[in-house]
């Protein structure tokens, strides 16, 4: 017993050392990637602002104050007030919070479903035909139109918005995962696993999946951004987050009628959408450079 424990101990020490070394290297490589760092920074700042920012003022997002309607930005209302006298600053941040929640849920859920669809359709040919035709059908359908009709039927709630967007964006993820899995599947190390007698489930989840993760993360970060834009569009059209609750889209809608007299109602939520989406896109680009350096070269040449 004591005989085996010593090399075991040495091994564990070596493992910790190597892991730390590799972690430090990875961190340094990430920090050297200016795009990814900027994108991550912007996203983190916006997240902090969305969740902690509202605590800085006494106003609530639904507090109506008709006397102070359409005030320009001031020390009291940092981004002015809207046509009901509600504080735009608080409403924008609450809207951002909702947007982030929706973007994150959509990215997460469509990744989960998309990964399963992509991996299995890459591995089983017959299933591939069926799933990819369904995917083609979904991609041919305009996202907004589908979302509007679903919400018109099932009612405008945050949950319905999320579910619809998941349906719309899952194909994007499934496609990317599938195309990567198809490449990985033909690699000799997958064949070597079959020679070892590995089960399909093990090959798919333990060996093919990790090799598709990098492109999955990149794609998911874009879905995150696109879902936020789509949600804003839906709310602007009145089929997103229901009215009194703030969302970047419906603040813009409220501001539309007074755009000539109260510019702050349009500029601040608009700027916030730009900020969130820009941060996500930059982060996605940076992550792609960071995670798979090979595709990056091909893309940047275009």
């Amino acid at each position: 017993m004591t005989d085996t424990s010593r090399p075991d101990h040495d091994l564990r020490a070596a493992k910790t050392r190597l892991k730390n070394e590799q972690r430090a290297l990875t961190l340094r490589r990430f920090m050297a990637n200016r795009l990814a760092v900027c994108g991550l920074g912007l996203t983190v700042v916006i997240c902090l602002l969305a969740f902690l920012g509202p605590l800085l003022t006494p106003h609530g997002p639904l507090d109506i104050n008709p006397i102070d309607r359409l005030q320009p930005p001031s020390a009291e209302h940092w981004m002015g007030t809207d046509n009901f006298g509600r504080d735009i600053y608080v409403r924008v941040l609450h809207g951002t919070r909702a947007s982030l929640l929706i973007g994150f849920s959509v990215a997460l859920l469509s990744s989960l479903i998309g990964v399963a669809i992509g991996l299995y359709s890459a591995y089983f040919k017959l299933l591939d035909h069926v799933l990819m035709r369904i995917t083609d059908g979904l991609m041919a359908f305009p996202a907004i139109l589908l979302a509007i009709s679903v919400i018109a039927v099932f009612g405008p709630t945050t949950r319905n918005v999320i579910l619809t967007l998941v349906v719309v964006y899952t194909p994007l993820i499934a496609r990317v995962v599938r195309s990567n899995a198809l490449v990985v599947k033909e690699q000799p190390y997958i064949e070597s696993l079959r020679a070892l007698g590995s089960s399909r489930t093990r090959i798919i989840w333990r060996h093919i999946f990790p090799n598709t993760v990098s492109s999955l993360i990149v794609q998911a970060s874009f879905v995150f951004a696109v879902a936020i834009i789509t949600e804003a569009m839906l709310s602007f059209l009145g089929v997103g987050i229901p009215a009194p609750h703030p969302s970047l889209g419906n603040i813009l809608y409220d501001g539309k009628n007074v755009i000539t007299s109260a510019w702050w109602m349009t500029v601040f939520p608009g700027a916030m959408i730009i900020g969130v989406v820009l941060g996500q896109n930059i982060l996605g680009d940076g992550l792609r450079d960071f995670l798979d350096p090979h595709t990056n070269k091909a893309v940047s040449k275009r």
Partner: protein
Amino acid sequence: MSHATSPDTPRASAPEPLLRAVEVRQHFPVRRGFFKPTAYVKAVNGVSFEIAEGETFGLVGESGCGKSTLGRTLLRLVEPTDGACFYRGENIFEKSPSEFARFRRELQMVFQDPYSSLNPKMRVGDILEEAMKIHGIGTRRTRTDRVIELLETVGLSSEHYFRFPHEFSGGQRQRIGLARALSLSPKVVICDETVSALDVSIQAQVLNLMKRIRREFDLSYLFISHDLGVVKYISDRIGVMYLGNLVEVATAEELFESPKHPYTQALISALPKTNPRTKKERIKLTGEVPSPLSPPSGCCFHTRCPHATEICRTTVPASRTISDTHKVACHLYEGRA
């Protein structure tokens, strides 16, 4: 060691060889068009040979002759079209997938490309333990011990356990591939062009390692290569493949001393000589290898054979026994057994 002359001979008094392939065929369907009938690429077209315990059987042939496909077929990485393969007397081609799992532990493979045959996202230790995990061998600790032992056997050390494949050179990766095949303590290892991707000095190291491992682990190799020199160095017996057929089988010495089949003769005459003064006629083959989609009738080699006669065009030559250890599929040796 004796050779069954015909695949149909019932098990003779001679001991059953460790691995015996009988008339193995691997045909891949090719859809050429909607109205045309499906064609078949006859990658392996009726190959029979046997490997005795502790023996290295070399398989040579030019690229595209079906030698790699044969190796993959024997392990059922592609399902065989026809034929049988007996391992210790049991036909492994007829086993159901679950029954076959037992044989996987005995029959292993080392792959050609050292760069893509290891999962780039996994640490070497995990790659090597994977096989044992799949077959549920040992506990975590015993597996780790075994892997470190294996790493040392193939000339690496325990500090390589947590490294990723990209941190190794080609030769080191082939050593890892070898260790992976050994992790299940197999009896037969199929080496598919194992050293072809390595440069010559590393080739020698890996070949010597393989020889040592064969002794230590009491293994048999099916050594597939296009490199005659490498095959001569490591093999006890050699089979020569041409267009999906095994045209000649002999001991390594016999094959190089007195090649019988015209194709083997041409191959060996193409080897560079160590003494430049020796005059030896170079047999030049003309033409191209015919397409395996429509192999020539009769002897598959007759289109390029300098000695081809009428019978070669019409009749497929059977495998003839020249001596106890030498078999050739050629009409030239008719009645000269």
